[in-house]
Every structure is written in C-alpha cells, then in structure tokens.
C-alpha cells in the first residue's frame, strides 16, 4: 500500500462539494478505512449476523431485514438514552464544532465536521421518528435509510475516535462520542463491525487480555520484565500473579507488558511499587484494563469490564490500582461502577505509604497510578534524580479520556516536573481539555487505515512539531496505551526526531532505588551518559 508523503497529504482541500451532503455514496479508498470483523470473532462473542464481507465489496450481504433491525435498534436506544434523543433534537447547526475535529482538520472532508457526521444519523432519525421529517422529507433535513447510508455510517463513524473534543465547544454539550457509540452499536446489530475492535474484544473475553496471551504467557512476560529490571537496576523485585490476600490488585493495559514503548512504563511500575513496598498482585484473568467494548457497544463494555471486580473479589484485595491507559480510564471512571458495581466488598483506597485516603474513589475503589504516584512525590516518599532523564526534553500529551472524561490533568504534569528537568507545554489550544487525539483511538489504530490515521493525527503531531522546533522537545510523554502504540508512527511521519514514552517510564528512570547498582542505562537499556552530553 502506498501512503502519500506528508507534503502530499497536507494539501488539504477544505471545500465542500457543490451538490450538498445528502447523497450517501462513499468510496472506500485503501488506507482510509478498517477491514470488517472476522466471522469467528463475532461467533465467539455471540454477536449477530456473522459473515464474510469487506467494506469495498459492492454487496455487504446484509441480513434480509436489516432495515427493520436498524430502525428498531434506534427506537430502543431513543427510549434508553436521554443523551441520544436530546442530541438528535437540539443541534442548531451553529458549526462551532466544525473545525474542532482532528479528522476534519486532517482530511477536509465536510462529513467529518462533527455536526455533519451527526447529521448523517440525524437525517434518518428525522425521516422515521419525527413528524416534520415524515411530512416534509428532505426539506426538513430527512433522508431515507438505504444500504448506501449504512456504508456511509460505517465509513464516517469509523473516522471518529470518540475523543469528545467537539463536545467541549458545543453550546449544548452535544457529544459526538455518544452518537458514534450508538451508531456503532446499530451497525453491530447487522454484523458490520471492524476487526481491529472485535478481535481484541474476543481475545480479551477469552484469555483476559486483548492480545490473546494465555496465563502462562502472561507470567512469562512479567517474569522476563522482572529479570530485565534486575539487569538494569541490580534490584530484584517481586511481581506476583493471582495472589490471594494481596492488598491491591494492579490492572494495566496488556500492551504494557508486550508493546514498545509501553514496556518501559511497565518496568517503571515494577520499580516504583517495589521501592514503596506496595503489597500488590497482578491477575492473569484480569490482565487487561483497556476495554475495546467501548468501541463496539455498551453491552460489550460491561461484559469485558466485569472481570475487574470479579477478580478483585476472588483475590480478596482491598482496592484496585490502574495503570496508564486512556479509554480504559473512561470505562473505569464513567462506566464501571454503574455497570458492574457496587464494589461494596472493597475498601476505600488508602495509600499504605503516605496514609492518604483517596476520597475521590470511595465508591469505585480504583485509583489511577498517576494519582498514586503524585501523592507519593508530594509526601517526599521517593528519591528522584531528574538528571537521569537528562537526555529527554519532554512535553505532555493529554490523552483524550483522562483529560475530558476524568479531569486527570495536573497529576501527570506534577510527576513530570519532578522526574525530568526539561518540560515544555504544547500550545494552549492543543492540551488539557482541548487536547487533540492521536488520531487512532477507539479501535482505528490499524495499518490498513494508515492514511486516515496520519490525517487524524495531524493536529497533535503539528503541536509537537511546534515545541520540537521551538524548544527542542524530543520526547512526548503520555498516559495511554493506544497513544504509545500509534504516536510513534505518527511522529515518525510528521515530526521525525521525537520519541514517545509513558510517564512511569520517566519515573522509573529517575527513581533512585535502595540497593541499586551504579546505573549505566535507562529503562530502555540505552546509556544514561547522554545526560551529561545534553547538559553540556
């Protein structure tokens, strides 16, 4: 597959086609869409209408009564979600959201303006669920539901990463993520899913994690990490799995113990938790905090998330600690307690190191590791040597969900300022609640979708480029597993010369451990001497 070069890709035309937007026809051009989910994944999860098909096929082999299924599905969800009904009814098309979407900025396709993406569904809602739409048709902005509309939905609702940036700017808080979630549910009813979402979901359901790593494989990688950490630091840490009676269950995204650069963050967790002597265990059964259900349906969120509380109960822990992951934390923060709570078998989390009671988690009993670490640093419990990160000039990318669904904004910054010397913020309009998505969230981070990912990631990469050129930033820190997987190719494409790391990788580098040997390499196994060079 030939991907256009950056200088070609950036020739973006923001002009709208002359004939308006009501024609649903789309062209599935390679590089701009994701392949369909394999039938075996649907079957494993018990999802309907499994079959072999691809988006670029003319015939999608929809079930005979697909139209009724979609309309019934809409009716049901209009009854169940106030958000859905309200967001269908009250948009005034002011257009404030238009240029807030990274996919619109990067593609110039007017159907990627959040308002218009929503209208793709709203027009069908009007046609079948409102009087004016039934009476006046296209004059009232109504469209018939046709197979082409289904294809159009599939295309454009997989060009939304559920990042919620548009919702920040909407005067009514209309949240495209909510609309995208509903449409993807509807598409799922007729078996139109993407594989990059359903394969991880099926894996996760079966083995406990997205990658389909079986328990002994999980143990292998944890053991390997322990060995490697010993090699780097000279300190032998303990990392138990499925250990009953531990005080804390640690749940991390599976990429942390298998992906790069996630893995260095994993080493950071191991070093940190050993140093403060936290009595914790991993679970091979709940070896995934990330939740690809969020990109498929509310029901799938619940099905995959259930194991976190089930396992906390079985192991008899007091509370749960969660690693660095974006969408995972949207689920843990906004859905878990409602779906699978109440967690009345757990205790309100208290840091055994500082005595801090995490009152903000007194119901879910789950603490973000950045909250935990920030508290440790604040109480002076860690010996940190920021110069060990001297070769890095750091900026921080707020991951969409921790920023806009949690408000976890200051904790990671506080940590970064304590573990490295050089830190520069990206421009105001691209961080905190206005942060831009990596362009590959919500299950779109697959290689066949590469061009669209580079387009969607343009605003983020461009802000990195700004600080790279202005301050010499060479490291983008973040707290999301999808970021860590998809930002490296994005930056490679738009801003070569900037690496990506998790916040706890930098913590692990700076952490001076008791009994450690003379440190010559950082957690990447790369020489630390470069720090002096950087300072010289």
């Amino acid at each position, binding site marked *: 597959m030939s991907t256009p070069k950056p200088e070609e890709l950036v020739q973006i035309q923001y002009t709208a086609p002359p004939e308006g937007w009501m024609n649903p026809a789309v062209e599935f051009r390679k590089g701009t869409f994701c392949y369909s989910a394999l039938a075996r994944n649907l079957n494993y999860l018990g999802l309907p209408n499994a079959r072999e098909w691809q988006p670029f096929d003319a015939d999608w082999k929809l079930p005979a009564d697909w139209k009724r299924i979609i309309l019934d599905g809409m009716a049901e969800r209009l009854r169940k979600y*106030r958000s859905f*009904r309200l967001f269908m009814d009250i948009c*005034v098309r*002011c257009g404030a959201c238009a240029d807030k979407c990274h996919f619109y900025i990067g593609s110039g396709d007017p159907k990627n303006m959040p308002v218009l993406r929503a209208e793709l569904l709203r027009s069908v809602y009007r046609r079948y669920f409102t009087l004016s739409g039934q009476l006046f048709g296209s004059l009232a902005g109504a469209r018939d539901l046709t197979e082409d509309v289904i294809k159009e939905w599939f295309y454009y609702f997989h060009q939304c990463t559920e990042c919620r940036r548009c919702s920040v700017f909407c005067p009514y808080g209309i949240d495209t993520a909510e609309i995208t979630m509903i449409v993807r549910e509807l598409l799922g009813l007729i078996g139109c899913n993407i594989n990059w979402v359903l394969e991880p979901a099926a894996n996760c359901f079966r083995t406990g994690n997205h990658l389909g790593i079986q328990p002994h494989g999980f143990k292998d990688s944890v053991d390997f990490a322990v060995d490697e950490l010993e090699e780097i630091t000279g300190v032998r840490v303990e990392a138990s799995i499925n250990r009953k009676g531990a005080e804390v269950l640690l749940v991390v995204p599976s990429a942390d113990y298998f992906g790069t650069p996630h893995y260095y963050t994993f080493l950071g967790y191991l070093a940190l938790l050993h140093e403060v002597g936290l009595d914790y265990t991993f679970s091979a059964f709940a070896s995934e905090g990330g939740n690809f259900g969020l990109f498929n349906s509310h029901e799938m969120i619940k099905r995959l998330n259930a194991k976190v509380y089930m396992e906390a109960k079985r192991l008899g822990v007091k509370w749960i600690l969660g690693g660095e992951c974006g969408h995972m934390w949207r689920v843990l923060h906004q*859905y878990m307690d409602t779906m699978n709570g109440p967690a009345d078998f757990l205790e309100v989390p208290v840091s055994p190191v500082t005595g801090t009671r995490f009152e903000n988690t007194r119901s879910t009993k789950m603490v973000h590791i950045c909250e935990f670490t920030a508290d440790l640093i604040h109480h002076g419990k860690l010996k940190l040597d920021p110069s060990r990160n001297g070769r890095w000039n750091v900026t921080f990318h707020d991951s969409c969900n921790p920023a806009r669904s*949690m408000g976890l904004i200051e904790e990671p910054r506080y940590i970064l300022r304590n573990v490295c010397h050089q830190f520069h913020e990206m421009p105001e309009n691209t961080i905190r*609640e206005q942060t831009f998505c990596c362009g590959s969230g919500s299950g779109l981070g697959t290689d066949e979708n590469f061009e669209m990912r580079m387009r969607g990631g343009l605003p983020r990469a461009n802000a990195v480029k700004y600080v790279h050129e202005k301050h010499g930033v060479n490291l983008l820190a973040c707290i999301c597993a999808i970021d860590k997987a998809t930002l490296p190719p994005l930056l490679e494409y738009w801003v070569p010369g900037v690496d990506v790391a998790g916040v706890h990788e930098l913590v692990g580098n700076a952490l001076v451990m008791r009994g450690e040997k003379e440190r010559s390499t950082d957690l990447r196994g790369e020489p630390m001497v470069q720090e002096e060079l950087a300072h010289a």
Partner: protein
Amino acid sequence: MARTRWHLKRAFSAFMAVSGVALLAGLASQVEGIRPLLAFAVPYAALTILLLGLSWRVIRWSKAPVPFRIPTVCGQEKSLPWIKAGWLESPSSTPGVIARMSLEVLLFRSLFRNTRARLGAGPKLIYGEAKWLWLGALAFHWSLLVVLLRHLRFVVEPVPRLAVFLDGVDGFFQVGAPVLYATDILLLAGLLYLLQRRLREPQIRFISLFTDYFALFLLLGIAISGVWMRYLARVDVVAVKQLALSLTIFSPSLPKNLSALFFAHLALVSALAAYLPFSKLMHVGGVFLSPTRNLANNNRSKRHVNPWNYPVKVHTYEEWEDEFRDKMKAAGMPVEKD
C-alpha cells in the same frame, strides 16, 4: 454556479415561506370576515400548540433515563487535596454543576471557547480567536429576552415594574421619538450576523438546512415588522393592548384600527410559537437536560445507577481456569481447583 445554487435554494425557499405567511396574513386581515380568525383563533391555536408541544417534548426527554454519568470534563478533577480542582469546569458537587450550567445558559460559556483552525504553510496549524459567533448569539438571545419581557406591558395591566424598568434601561440613550431601544438594534444586528454567517461561510453554508434559514427568517420577520410598527408605521398601541388584554382574559374583542402590518407581525409570532416544539429551537429547553453538562464529575466517589442495567453474558473465572488450568499449573501459577 452550481455551488451557490444548493444553499441559495434553501435560503430562498425559507425566505419565501416566511414572506408568504406575512403577506397572507396582511392581505387576509383586510377582509372583515377573516380578521377575527387572525386575531383570536390563530394566536390561541399557536399558543396551545406551543404549550402542549413544549411539554410533550420536555416530558419525552425527561422520561428517557440517563443510564451513565457522562460529563464532558473541562478542568482538573477533584482528587488529591493539594491539587486545585476546577470546581466550575469539572464540578464535583451540585453547586458547581449549577454554576457551570448557569454560565452555559446565561453566558454561552462553551461558545466563548470557540477558535478557528487554519492550516498555514509549513504545515503549521494556527488556532485563532473566534468570538463573533459568541457575541452575535449573545446579542440576539439576550435582546430577544428583553424584547419579550418588554411586551409584558401589552398583556398585563397595570404594566409590571419589570417591563417599566426594562423600558427605561433599554431606552437609556433617549435617542429619537419614540425612543430607540438598544435591544431592537442588537436583536436585528444579531440575527443579520447569524444569517450572513450561514450564507457566507462555506462550511456553515454547507451544513445549513432549510429549517435553519426558516427559523432565522421567521425571527427576522418578527423583528422587522415589530421595529417597523414602532418607529415607522406608528401602530395604534392602545388598540394593540386592548386586543392583547382581551385575549388574556379569554373574552376576545377586536378593536377597529389595527393595521395589516400588525396582523403580519402577529401571524409570524404565532407561526414561530407553533413551529418551536417541532424544531431545533427546542434547544431552549434541551440545554438544561444535556447529560454532558448537567452532571457532576464525581463518578468514582458516588455511584450512578442505571435503571435498565441488565445482566450480561460474561466469561467467569471458573470457565477461564477450566480452559487454562493445566498450563497454569505447569507454569506454577496458583489455581482454585486441582
């Protein structure tokens, strides 16, 4: 050429529809027999539709549950005591939510954030200030409210203090006779800004539907006919008040000297009232119910209950261990069953 046609067609048909209502009402009012219909039946019917429609819509929204607490958080969460929480943008309690909602409803907080993205050479993305939409919307909405409240003097006797007060403030500059109301200018300016924006900015033009233009022209028609009556045609205010009062006590009587212009104005207002429940103008009620704004960001400290939460098929630990037990034992991992 084709580019202009699509949106102009929409805008033009909306303009014609609104003009049609005004002209039809103005002409019909010249026919003695139809006048009571325009003066009594149409306003009553419109008001009935407005009240019933509004309640129906709001009840239907309220009846739909809010299964999940999904605020769009725009500030620091309340977490560790030494980190300053954004009580307004990330409210953790009801007072914070009320404050956030008040800012949203009264001052259009979110629209105030608006920026304009521009892709420059380099490539370099630049996010510029874009406050005009906020200003135009604010001018229009607040003026409309004041104008509406000023109209109280037509339907309540004695004239409420609020209306008198607003009259004074609004005519503060004492320009012209009758005194020029600032809100009349602002209302028209706001509407014209919003209209030209729809017609001129390519993106907004592209997303605009007939209904968007219709609402704008309807409001413009009302504003223009109102201003015309007050400053140019000098409508017989006593007669208007006589009709309005008679309508409020459900004993309608029709004064003689009401102009065609007045009937056009009344018809447009009635059209707006009857149209409102079926239109996007329902945002006036909907904004209060938006779950991304009116909920606190206290998800982890207070459990939110979903009334239709149902059991789902999960993969249990037992099923999982059954599948992997042998491998787990071989790897020396603890198991429940041997």
